[in-house]
């Protein structure tokens, strides 16, 4: 008996049993499913949808929390008009994009490369994996403060380390040309392990048969990578890429603890500018408009990437089913 016919037989037996002994269900499957997800829905409603609705409302009002008017009348699209014509907003958006592109690219390339190396390791794989995970476990703000001192030109260890390479002393966080790269280095240190872990899990889950067949056929390493490994890893890498990109454009903790957006405004990314507008200047109307524009861009980006990703998954599922 083939596997398919065995499954069919088992299914048919089950149906017959059900018919033979009809039992009244207390609640329907639909109600049961709704009950199961209800707690999560309530949480999402309270902690995501209601605040989102409130933010949308505030973005169309005048809302200066420290003025006597507080949250006041509707002003139409005035806040969106202000934000879209605000040079500081666009400059912060450019910095955010620059950060996200460089940081995510470096993290993806380094993370995948290290994951391949780890995958091939024969000894100490477990310990190495545990050590690599440490930066992920640390609080970004706490580690950021430690890194701030390590970066300091007068007391920090980094200038000593680069001097061993014959590179002159650098003002890591105080030089406008270097500060953003210093934040990127910190982010790469903290988040590359995430890419490594997920990629490594993906590599370990790949079926062995195609690779053994390729080896028997005498395929080169590059050809195996190009035609087998990377295509099979694509869903995992896409997911990692999306998660890292979303996280990178939400960058806040590292900037807060390392540079406070400085020197000047050179590391003032969008979330930090948003924080200042909303929680330093208390212009909740403008901050809400900014946050919604920011959310819109993130959702569109995620939607575009994930649509392709979901299409691939669906195609693969259909292929396997047939």
């Amino acid at each position, binding site marked *: 008996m083939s596997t398919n016919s065995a499954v069919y037989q088992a299914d048919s037996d089950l149906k017959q049993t059900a018919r033979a002994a009809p039992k009244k269900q207390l609640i329907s499957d639909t109600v049961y499913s709704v009950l199961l997800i209800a707690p999560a829905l309530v949480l999402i409603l309270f902690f995501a949808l209601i605040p989102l609705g409130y933010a949308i409302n505030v973005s169309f009002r005048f809302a200066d*929390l*420290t003025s*006597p008017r*507080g949250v006041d009348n509707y002003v139409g699209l005035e806040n969106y008009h202000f934000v879209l014509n605000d040079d500081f907003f666009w400059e912060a958006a450019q910095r955010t994009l620059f950060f996200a592109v460089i940081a995510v690219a470096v993290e993806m390339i380094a993370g995948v490369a290290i994951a391949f190396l780890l995958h091939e390791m024969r000894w100490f794989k477990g310990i190495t994996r545990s050590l690599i995970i440490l930066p992920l476990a640390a609080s970004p703000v706490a580690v950021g403060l430690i890194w*701030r001192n390590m*970066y*300091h*030109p*007068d*007391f920090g260890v980094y200038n000593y380390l680069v001097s061993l390479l014959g590179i002159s*002393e650098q*003002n*890591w*966080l*105080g*030089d*406008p040309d270097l500060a953003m790269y210093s934040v990127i280095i910190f982010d790469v240190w903290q988040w590359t392990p995430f890419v490594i872990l997920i990629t490594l899990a993906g590599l370990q889950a790949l079926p062995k048969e195609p690779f053994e067949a390729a080896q028997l056929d005498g395929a080169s390493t590059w050809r195996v990578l190009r035609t087998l490994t990377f295509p099979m890893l694509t869903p995992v890498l896409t997911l990692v890429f999306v998660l890292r990109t979303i996280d990178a454009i939400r960058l806040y903790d590292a900037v807060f603890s390392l*540079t*406070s*957006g*400085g*020197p*000047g*405004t*050179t590391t*003032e990314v969008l979330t930090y500018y948003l924080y*200042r507008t909303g*929680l*330093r*200047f*208390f212009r909740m109307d403008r901050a809400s408009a900014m946050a919604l524009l920011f959310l819109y861009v993130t959702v569109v980006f995620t939607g575009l990437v994930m649509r392709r990703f979901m299409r691939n998954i669906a195609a693969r599922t259909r292929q396997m089913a047939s």
Partner: protein
Amino acid sequence: MIRKLAILALVFALALVIAPRPVTPAKAQDVTITWATIAGFYTDWAEEVARQYEESTGVNVEIIDIDFPSLYENQVLEAVADTGAYDILTYDVGWKAEFSESGYLLPLDDYIANADPAVIAFDDISPALTETTSKWRGKTFGLPYYTFTMGYFYRCDLFENPDEMVAFEAEYGYPLGIPQTYEQLADIAEFFRREPGETLAGKTVEADFYGIGLMAARAPHVQDEINSIAWSWGYKVIEDDGTPGVTSEGFLKAVNLYVNELLPYAPPGATSSAFDQVVAQMRQGLIAQTAAFYLDQYPNMVKTEEEVEGARICTAPAPGAHTWVGAFGLGVSSDSEHPQEAFDFVAWLAGPEAQRAFAAGGGSTSRVSILTDAAFIAEHPLTAGHYPTLQFVLDHTAKSNFYPNYLFVPQGGKIYDEMTTWYSAAASGDESPEGAMEKMAEAIERQCDGLCEIANDALGENYTPVPMPFDYETFLASGAYDIDVWIANQGN
């Protein structure tokens, strides 16, 4: 059986829930007041004295530690939402106008009038500090408890070295000494910059030595330094007519002096340094001087004497003596459920008894009776060695009646944040001084929504902030710059 037991348990549980409880009268111990304050040294000390207060009064004091950069927004958010989360607010002088004007703080005049004058001893608080920290539109909104008034720290061992004195006078044409102007400060900064292999006070320098330490990072200190230069020259962040003054020729000169004549002689990390890094630079023997710098850091600065061979730390007013004068104030939140208890604690904490304990622990008190207590200072030279200088600065400020307009603008807290950004931009080279000040002017106008309203009515109709020359002769004669000299002079 099991069913009966379950019913019995349920009845018992219900009885426990609905049974009337004995009513106990509210005791003082039932009152808890919360105090939002700055995490760090300030809180460590406060924890100790708050426990003493609890023991003597029975009122519980819950201290909420908040990092200084987040203190402003946390307090404003709670005040705006009217949550009553904090009974006592801690504020910087720049926030006083905003906190008072917006109704976050209760006016304390009636409470003060009804309080025991011996506990408050209001007249004992330095007038400069009541003006900057307590008063708003003729009313009292808080009491100062910790002054961070700025001054000047220098390595007097280097300044008194005969070789250095001769070399300086030969190069600049006047004797080396406490700088009385910012131009002199720049000369001294340039003079003391030494590269490895050069000589400093007769010894060969092994590592780079810098003429000045500066807090030029994007942290809330860079504005205190640059504003001090501008104020000492009489230039204002906000003009008397409410327009931004930061693009005026004189103000730009002050910013340029900082960027072009002081920063080049500071350690390379200056643009990523806050106050604690400058203290570390001094204690590592990297810098010769720093101004304007918080005098309350004396207990940390003086440790240089233990850590750097032959070093001696002296203090003086920042050049011109018109600088960032003020204190952290304590006020009662207008949404406090226990305003009287909160006020009582504020009055006690800012009062003579607690302030003396505070001073003995290394705090910079706001009380004149302690700042001028020679016996107390002689007993605590390592923690109170800056008091004579501090008293000179406070006295000078009160006599000159010079309080920058910026302190009397309700948007002070927000403008303070903008200053950090744009002064940092100028200092780091992210923007030219002129470009940075243009952007700061725009930011000030945006925060004030046009012209800033200067509510300096408390200072009288004819009030115009004009700097007054500082009496360096009296200061030098007193020996206040060197605590050992000052103590010796007290005996004469």
